[in-house]
């Protein structure tokens, strides 16, 4: 059996297989792939404990479009396979691991490298490399060094270091983290609390989930650093219950950290006590808002309260509380070990460091990316994202989640940082980025986001509860072809009034998608209202369905699909749509195999 | 009150009996105050307590002595306060030594850990207040129970500062005022003794008649005398002893025996059945006057409608006096208050005119006095200004369960009804919610007796029996049952015992032995 011999000959210590087992990976079947690697290696006579050592799971590396992804590192030479299935594993083991020649056609292509090369990974560096369920793997790459280091400093010195780094909150508003800490540390009251906000609710956003799944210890270490700096002995991680894998990994990580003496009493053999509790959210978007989150931890209905007083003064149980999001916290260890100076050298003058974005929508390389602040939107969309799908023309990019704003393609060269995004009527948010091409109707898109925020409004304040409802009703009538003269002005009036009078960030930013699309795409609104046309041909009520005689293959599928008998068709005759009877449901459009319905 | 950091609630169920006081207590709890509850029933407050001392009925003194003992043993007492402002400490210390944890656990049924923890919480507090209710006073040792509470507060020095002290929650709207203004056998209005010649002289001058120096009969004694045939005529103003007094059979006999009974009330009651003449009363909506609440706040009652029967009580009493040869000619109750102000120094500065503009708590001796909110800030009401520790012994209830009557009956109120129910039972809405008496019985006991919620049961004591529906609930602990006295169809006070506090004459409503049968 030559194969067995070769495997034995190979220095197994030099073999490492890393399989991506984030939520995306698992959904694509990475657990099965990993198991198959194990059993294949064993069938080649390799001992179970060695197999266990060299087949590693890792968190998400961002390029989710090509899951399952796995690295095979043999004698320091790393090859990455994409779109793996368990059936493919035996050939990889046979040809690559045993015989030393990688299976070329299954390796990742240039877009994988392009996707990664433009990024600057601080936060995501270890995601996709280390085993998230192994504390030693984290320690091995320098984990908990930051936490160890701070105990030789005064809390005020830690705060000063973070201030000097220029780190701003990655949860949305971009408040200076060091300043927030300083306010809290100086606030009267005890005990104090530090809360990790992992209630990631923006549709399409999965930055926080990936970090916790891929590198949970970095979050814990960040909380230890924050806790020490502000003088908090208790930390909470508020995480949405829809993230079972992240919760599980976090629980493992917390329990391992306790065992190592990194959490609990007298952590790191100092006099400082610090421990963390996990609080699972119940699926309300609003609970990502810090004061609503506090109410939720306190066991109340998750509703925001007015600020001031800010949580740094009166937070959880009325005590001084710092709330940082996952990304902010997991950046901290690196800042402490590498220094504020190093960190502040990355990014722009006012926006330091890197930012993680989840890019989705009409873009080729959807996934998770980390780039330095200030990178141009163009680089993100084209160089990393690979441009629009099907080579359609880019129309706009929505940043900041459902309550962010739309940036039109004409501003593609703008830098992505806090100030520039604000100036254009959008915001950084938590890092969602939705790319839209010319098949997107901007009115419809604004309606979609507004219906999300309207549904998720907690109902506490009048403008958000009723105001967004009324805006949504106006948008709905516009997309239904029943828009009236004056509707745009009414939207603007309502939108601006809601922005000014709402209680929390949700309401204050809910009109953004509408206001920014009116600002940049007012003509589309006018076309809907005045001409009864949806330029992107998305709004069904405004569409006039016709059959292209050239493309029609006379199959009759549209005829059968039509629920209102609006289509006339006979065998060997092209179909014909009666506009009077058509209810614009789009069933024929869906049914036509030849794209003959226009 | 909301600044309290530790609240010790003893023998009081304010969420039911004093809902508005409970709102203040709840505010303190919401602000994070610790809560200790001493109560045999698992009340709303007991459920939320940090420590629930689920003591057996009648074991108050053992409980309190035990707490004081723990505090002294552990050195948690306020030595400075004890030295400067009290006396009798050594005697107390010797006495409470007899109440070690094991004995107190046995007497009260409360676990040692809870006793120690309660002692720790109370003694370590900065601003601790004790609030007690009728669960303390309605025992034959009622006065001693209250003294034992005072011992606890004094040992820790939790007195005389804002948000500290002892607060007694009293039963009826004008208990305070009715005591203040002298329908008492030993004192003239303002607690001025009939034995005091100076006081008598003052009143004789004002009223123009000689005042008897002989102490009169207490209500209980008057009833006893009635039964004995020595007492001939009785005027009962707005009272229903035939439902609300304990040992009703005795009361009924007394009222039957008296030769001439006048009852003035707004409704027919158990008592009016015995009357020779019934006079209609005016409800609080039909007359002017004042009530004095538990914190000595004198507040106006204002006439909203004309008296339904044409006259209010003050007019009736005046006319009757005039008819009997003592002329009374008040034009309105305001003039009566002016007379009170002239005779009772605590009320000296109070007039209707002032009450229109401000809220006054007595002592308010003069027209320009602002009234008094906190008492005993630096001196106690004893000649030397020092508080005296009282060494007390556990005596238990007058009647304890035995084989024949194995349960302890605790009586009290529910939120929806009031006393004999003559007012609340006339609200259709309230009757829709709480239509009848419910005997609260512990699930374990109920199972043994094969009783389900809603079953009719007979509750009997040595003195009689009543039938009512059972409610199986763990609000009652094993061995205890609870009933109210709001319903005329189930006269609970037929069951209650004849034992009384010898000092105040308050009956032992809170514990008697009963049997439960289906």
């Amino acid at each position, binding site marked *: 059996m030559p194969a067995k011999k070769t495997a034995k000959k190979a220095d197994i210590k030099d073999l490492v297989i890393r399989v991506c087992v984030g939520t995306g990976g698992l959904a694509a079947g990475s657990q099965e792939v990993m198991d198959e690697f194990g059993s294949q290696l064993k069938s080649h006579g390799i001992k179970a404990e060695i197999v266990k050592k060299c087949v590693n799971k890792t968190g998400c590396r961002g390029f989710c479009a090509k899951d399952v992804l796995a690295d095979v590192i043999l004698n320091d030479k790393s090859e990455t396979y994409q779109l793996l299935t368990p059936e493919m594993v035996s050939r990889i083991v046979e040809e690559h691991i045993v015989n030393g020649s990688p299976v070329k056609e299954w390796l990742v292509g240039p877009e994988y490298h392009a996707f990664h090369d433009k990024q600057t990974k601080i936060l995501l560096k270890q995601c996709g490399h280390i085993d998230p369920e192994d504390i030693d793997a984290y320690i091995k790459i320098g984990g908990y060094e930051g936490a160890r280091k701070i105990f030789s400093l005064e809390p005020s010195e830690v705060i000063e270091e973070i201030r000097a780094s220029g780190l701003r909150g990655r949860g949305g508003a971009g408040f200076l983290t060091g300043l927030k800490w300083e306010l809290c540390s100086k606030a009267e009251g005890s005990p104090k609390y530090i809360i990790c906000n992992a209630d990631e609710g923006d549709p399409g956003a999965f930055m926080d989930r990936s970090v916790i799944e891929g590198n949970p210890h970095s979050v814990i270490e960040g909380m230890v650093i924050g806790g020490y700096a502000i003088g908090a002995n208790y930390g909470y991680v508020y995480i949405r219950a829809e993230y079972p894998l992240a919760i599980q990994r976090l629980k493992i990580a917390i329990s391992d950290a306790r065992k190592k003496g990194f959490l609990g009493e007298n952590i790191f053999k100092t006099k400082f006590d610090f421990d963390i509790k996990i609080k699972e959210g119940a699926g309300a978007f609003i609970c990502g808002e810090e004061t609503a989150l506090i109410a939720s931890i306190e066991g109340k209905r998750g509703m925001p309260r*007015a600020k*001031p007083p800010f949580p740094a003064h009166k937070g959880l149980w009325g005590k001084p509380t710092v709330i940082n999001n996952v990304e902010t916290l997991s950046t901290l260890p690196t800042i402490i070990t590498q220094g504020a100076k190093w960190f502040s050298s990355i990014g722009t003058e006012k926006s330091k460091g890197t930012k993680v974005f989840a890019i989705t929508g009409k873009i080729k390389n959807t996934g998770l990316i980390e780039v330095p602040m200030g990178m141009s939107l163009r680089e993100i969309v084209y160089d990393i994202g690979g441009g629009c799908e099907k080579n359609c023309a880019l129309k706009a990019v929505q940043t900041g989640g459902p309550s962010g704003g739309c940036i039109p393609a004409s501003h593609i060269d703008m830098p992505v940082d806090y100030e520039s995004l604000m100036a254009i009527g959008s915001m950084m948010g938590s890092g969602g980025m939705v790319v839209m091409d010319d098949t997107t109707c901007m009115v419809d898109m604004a309606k979609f986001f507004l219906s999300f925020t309207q549904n998720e*409004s907690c109902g506490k304040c*009048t403008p958000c*509860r*009723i*105001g*967004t*409802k*009324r805006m949504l009703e106006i948008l709905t009538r516009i997309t239904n072809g029943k828009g009236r003269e004056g509707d745009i002005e009414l939207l603007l009036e*309502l939108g601006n009034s809601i922005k000014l*009078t709402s209680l929390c960030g949700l309401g204050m930013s809910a009109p953004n998608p509408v206001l920014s699309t009116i600002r940049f795409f007012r003509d589309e609104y006018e076309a809907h209202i005045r001409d009864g046309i949806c330029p992107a041909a998305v709004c069904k009520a405004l569409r006039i369905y016709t059959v292209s005689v050239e493309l029609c293959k006379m199959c009759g599928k549209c005829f059968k699909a039509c629920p209102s008998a609006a289509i006339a068709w006979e065998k060997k005759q092209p179909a014909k749509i009666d506009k009077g009877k058509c209810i614009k449901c789009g069933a024929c459009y869906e049914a036509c195999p030849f794209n003959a319905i226009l | 009150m909301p600044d309290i950091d530790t609240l010790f609630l003893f023998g009081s169920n304010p969420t039911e009996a004093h809902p508005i006081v409970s709102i203040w207590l709840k505010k303190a709890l919401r602000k994070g105050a610790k809560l200790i509850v001493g109560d045999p029933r698992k009340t709303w407050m007991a459920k939320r307590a940090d420590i629930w001392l689920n003591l057996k009925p009648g074991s108050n003194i053992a409980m309190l002595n035990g707490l004081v003992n723990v505090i002294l043993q552990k050195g948690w007492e306020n030595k400075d306060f004890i030295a400067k402002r009290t006396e009798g400490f050594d005697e107390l210390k010797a006495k409470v030594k007899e109440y070690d944890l094991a004995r107190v656990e046995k007497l009260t049924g409360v676990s040692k850990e809870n006793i120690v923890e309660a002692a720790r919480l109370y003694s370590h507090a900065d601003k601790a207040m004790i609030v007690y209710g009728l669960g303390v006073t309605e025992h034959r040792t009622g006065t001693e129970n209250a003294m034992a509470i005072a011992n606890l507060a004094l040992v820790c020095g939790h007195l005389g500062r804002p948000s500290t002290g002892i607060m007694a929650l009293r039963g009826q*709207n004008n*208990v305070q*005022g*009715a005591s203040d203004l*002298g329908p*008492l056998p*030993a004192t003239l209005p303002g607690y001025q003794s009939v034995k005091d010649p100076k006081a008598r002289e003052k009143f004789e001058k004002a*009223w123009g*008649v000689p005042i*008897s120096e*002989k102490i*009169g*009969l207490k209500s209980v004694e008057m009833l006893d005398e009635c039964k004995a045939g020595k007492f*001939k*005529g009785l*005027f*009962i*103003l*707005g009272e229903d002893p035939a439902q*609300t007094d304990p040992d009703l059979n005795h009361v009924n006999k007394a009222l039957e025996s008296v030769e001439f009974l006048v009852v003035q009330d707004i*409704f*027919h009651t158990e008592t009016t059945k015995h009357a*020779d*003449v019934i006079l209609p009363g005016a*409800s*609080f909506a039909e007359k002017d006057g*004042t*009530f004095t*609440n*538990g*914190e000595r*706040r004198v507040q106006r009652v204002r006439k909203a*409608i004309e008296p339904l*029967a044409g006259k209010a009580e003050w007019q009736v*009493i005046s006319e*009757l*006096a005039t008819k009997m040869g003592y002329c009374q000619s008040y034009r309105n109750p305001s003039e*009566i*208050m002016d007379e009170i102000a002239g005779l009772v120094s605590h009320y000296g500065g109070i007039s209707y005119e002032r009450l229109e503009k401000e809220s006054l708590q007595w002592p308010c001796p003069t027209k320009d006095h602002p009234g008094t909110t906190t008492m005993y800030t630096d001196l106690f009401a004893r000649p030397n200004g020092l508080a005296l520790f009282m060494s007390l012994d556990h005596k238990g209830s007058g009647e304890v369960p035995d084989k024949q009557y194995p349960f302890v009956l605790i009586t009290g109120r529910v*939120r929806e009804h*009031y006393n004999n129910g003559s*007012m*609340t039972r006339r609200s*259709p*809405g309230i009757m829709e*919610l709480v239509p009848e008496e419910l005997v609260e019985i512990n699930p374990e006991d109920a199972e043994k007796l094969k009783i389900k919620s809603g079953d009719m049961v007979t509750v009997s004591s040595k003195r009689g029996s009543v039938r009512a529906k059972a409610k199986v609930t763990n609000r009652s602990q094993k061995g205890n049952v609870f009933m109210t006295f709001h319903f005329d169809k189930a006269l609970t006070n037929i069951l209650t015992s004849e034992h009384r506090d010898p000092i*105040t004459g*308050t009956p032992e409503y809170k514990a008697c032995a009963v049997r439960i049968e289906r």
Partner: protein
Amino acid sequence: MKHARLMQYCSEYWEEALSENKIKITINGIETLCDRDDTILKVAKKIGVKIPHLCNDKRLEPYGGCRLCIVEVKGVPRPLPACTTPATENMEIITDNDSIRKLRANLIELLLSNHPNDCMRCERTGDCKLQNLSYEYGVDGSRFEGEKWDLPIREDNPFISYEPNKCILCGRCTRICNEVVMAGTIELTGRGFNSMPDTAFKKPRTLENCEFCGQCVSTCPTGALTDRKGRGKGRSYDLKKIKTTCSYCGTGCNFYLNVRDGKVVKVTSDTDAPVNQGNLCIKGRYGYDFIHSEDRIKTPLIKIGDKFVEAAWDEALDLIAEKFSSLMKKHGNESVGAFSSSRCTNEENFLLSKFVRTVFRSNNVDNCARV
């Protein structure tokens, strides 16, 4: 000279104020001192500046839900709610100008756009905060017409009527229930436009989930929550309100008896009451039926044989006077006595005490304080 003394007084005043940790703020150009944690609304009220609001009740924690109390604060780019914003040193506040009024009008329009606007048959007309604001700001909800709640009135219990359509989500009812009474009967349910106060699982109110204290009714600014027993018996302006003290327990709560045509038809809260600040329990708020109960004793009654016979006052009092006099003559002064009641007024207790001493000439008088 006078001026100098005044100046000195002023500077002393300021010094004292500052030493007490007071801070200076300016509202509509009026300088004033306040405590550090005072809200803008509280300070404004103190100096007589009116700021409209719907969700504020002094019994409750500041909420900031209705947004009507927004004011401009110098240096802050967006308006702030006066009810939740604490005053800070040298804060300069404008409570009323065109842009603030426009925003407020917008909010009122939004509220009215989901409101039945049936004031002509509403229980609260004349006493409704929303109605008053609509009048003051001259707006209705017609510009923002859209979906409106169309829910039936809920009268599933004897005391509290709930018309959800009139609810403006100010949260006062749910907060008073949870913050003050801690009964947990109602809480906001649902999300977005469909949020509304309700019981858990929309169950009817029973003693299982409700204390029937009516605190929620007492704080409701519109006609959403009303006292069921008082409905249709007269609007606020039809009723004579007499402030009095409760005759149940010894707490000493004040409230208003609402009287129409010689009948007590409702009890309403007196939020200035020193003891209860407008809070009441089921007995105080709803236990007034006994006043006009059918079986009130309306005339004196004299027992003849086994029956009570109606009598005139003079007849009855003559009989009593005669009977007591003869008993005293026959058996001595000590053979008669009186019980007084802690249910009666101070004046009555005093009078009875006086009566026994001056007419019976004994001390045989006692009350039920000990019972």
